[in-house]
């Protein structure tokens, strides 16, 4: 037995255990709320003092933060990671060179530690997700049922988040996610969904993915910023999920290379810039 085998590198140093919630910011909260409801999310709670709403669908928590939001386009602003110990995860990340989150930037009043992610986005660390809900502190539930969990349409669950990056930046961001969190790159060619491009990273808990996308060749004239651009929703049966969502009024892109298939589907662009991707997935969040 070698020393390395006796003392394996911690594959999951922070004890990451999936996504606790995804946070969007937008100044058009009502229009986005209506879209989310078409997508199968239900508004279950509102923040006690801020313009912040909690939506749920199955295992997914989604927060819409309109508190002081200037940009109408709904933007993925934060990913909250479930971790073993939030304080440890935060300190560990800072020690390795992450930037601490600006104070009071969080949608929540409950102190949730976090760090800067790509662009203007944040990564939060949440450790109270098993017995105690972080939402109990900040939110008033619509029906006073604290664990309101509307069932998921067609088994929808978090699959991952797509991140746009600048040219030649893939290696930098791989270093970021690998060394801070223990993400691993999937071999080239192993893609999910309908948009086979970029680099896929698997979370150390095997419960979700990040997809890094550099601008495609020939896109030199396209304005391309770094940021979180889209969430991917997993569905065990994509055609069934597409049909269910179409019946609720969601329109999917259906032209050329991008059209609904057994592997995935992409919604049209809503509200000036928000899309959702469906990806065939049997993940158990």
């Amino acid at each position, binding site marked *: 037995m070698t020393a390395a085998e006796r003392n394996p590198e911690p594959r999951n140093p922070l004890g990451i255990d999936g996504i606790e919630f995804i946070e969007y910011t937008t100044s058009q909260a009502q229009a986005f709320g209506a879209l989310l409801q078409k997508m199968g999310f239900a508004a279950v709670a509102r923040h006690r003092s801020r313009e912040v709403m909690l939506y749920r669908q199955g295992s997914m928590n989604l927060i819409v933060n309109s508190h002081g939001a200037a940009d109408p386009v709904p933007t993925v602003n934060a990913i909250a990671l479930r971790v073993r110990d939030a304080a440890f995860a935060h300190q560990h990340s800072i*020690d*390795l*060179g*992450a*930037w601490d989150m600006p104070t009071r930037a969080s949608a929540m009043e409950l102190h949730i530690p976090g760090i*800067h*992610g*790509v662009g203007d986005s944040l990564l939060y660390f949440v450790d109270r997700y098993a017995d105690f809900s972080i939402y109990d502190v900040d939110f008033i539930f619509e029906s006073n049922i604290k664990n309101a969990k509307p069932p998921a349409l067609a088994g929808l669950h978090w699959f991952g988040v797509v991140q746009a990056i*600048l040219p030649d*930046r893939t*290696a*930098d*961001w*791989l*270093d*970021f996610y690998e*060394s*801070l969190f223990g993400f691993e790159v999937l071999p080239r060619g192993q893609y999910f969904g309908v948009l086979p491009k970029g680099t896929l990273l698997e979370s150390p808990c095997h419960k979700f993915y990040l997809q890094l996308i550099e601008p495609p060749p020939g896109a030199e004239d396209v304005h391309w910023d*770094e940021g979180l651009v889209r969430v991917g929703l997993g569905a065990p049966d994509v055609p069934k999920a597409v049909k269910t969502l179409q019946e609720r009024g969601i329109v999917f892109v259906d032209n050329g290379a991008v059209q609904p298939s057994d592997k995935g589907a992409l919604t049209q662009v809503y509200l000036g810039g928000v899309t959702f991707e469906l990806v065939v997935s049997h993940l158990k969040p």
Partner: protein
Amino acid sequence: MDTITLAGPLEAKLKAVREAGFTQIMLNATDIVGHPDGEAAAVAAVRASGLRVTGFQVLRDFEGLSGTLHAYKVDVAKAMLDMCHALGSTVLLACSSVSPHASGKSEELVKDLRKLAMLAVPLNIRVAYEALSWGRHVNEFPQSWDIVAEADRSNLGLCIDSYHVIANQTDLELLEDIDPRKIFLVQLSDFLWQEVRSKEERIETARHSRVFPGEGVHSDKVAEITRKLDETGYRGDYSFEVFNDDYRQLPLPMVCERARRSVGWITGLVSRRSLPARRRA
């Protein structure tokens, strides 16, 4: 060109450099924080100049510290990175530490440079680590290369400064051991006497008496460094790192003209490299 060579306010330096036909500028933090109208005005002047920012300098004595000193340097580094980002620069120059408080243990240096590189990732900045010839533990490029290679971070690479290479008489053959993709910046300069034996002499010469390539007495060495880097496949930026007290009291167009002549001298070297006789077998 590098603003440290020129006297006067930032706007005058930018104007002189642009009018001399240069397309890039290496900036120093003091250009920005010393601007009479504040940092935002300095950033605006740089952006309005149309010059591409080659890099931003200089983070000193970052690696090898511990406790409060380390925390203090992290704060300094973050402020430098923020300024670098605001200027649209994608390279931050970090010099090897001269601090008597710094550890020389390579694992400590690797850990700290990884941290610096991590801080730089979200800001799209690459860290160019340079071996100062009077660095306490790291003073020659083979050492800085060992640390950068061990750290193995995409946005951590080297700055090679011809002055330090010549001052310490580092074996130029060792340039061939470096992955050219990991050299993020090359700074060229020469000086006017044969040797700089003591640390004090090296510091004094480096800070006050450098000249442009082609003006000094080590032209063959500067030429060899440039040629070797070119042969290994380096295709990144070159900048004139010329600290010179005389140049800082001469009219800017005159200094820029000397820099232009130096470019001509280097271009001559580069054009000759394509001759078969100059190619290595």
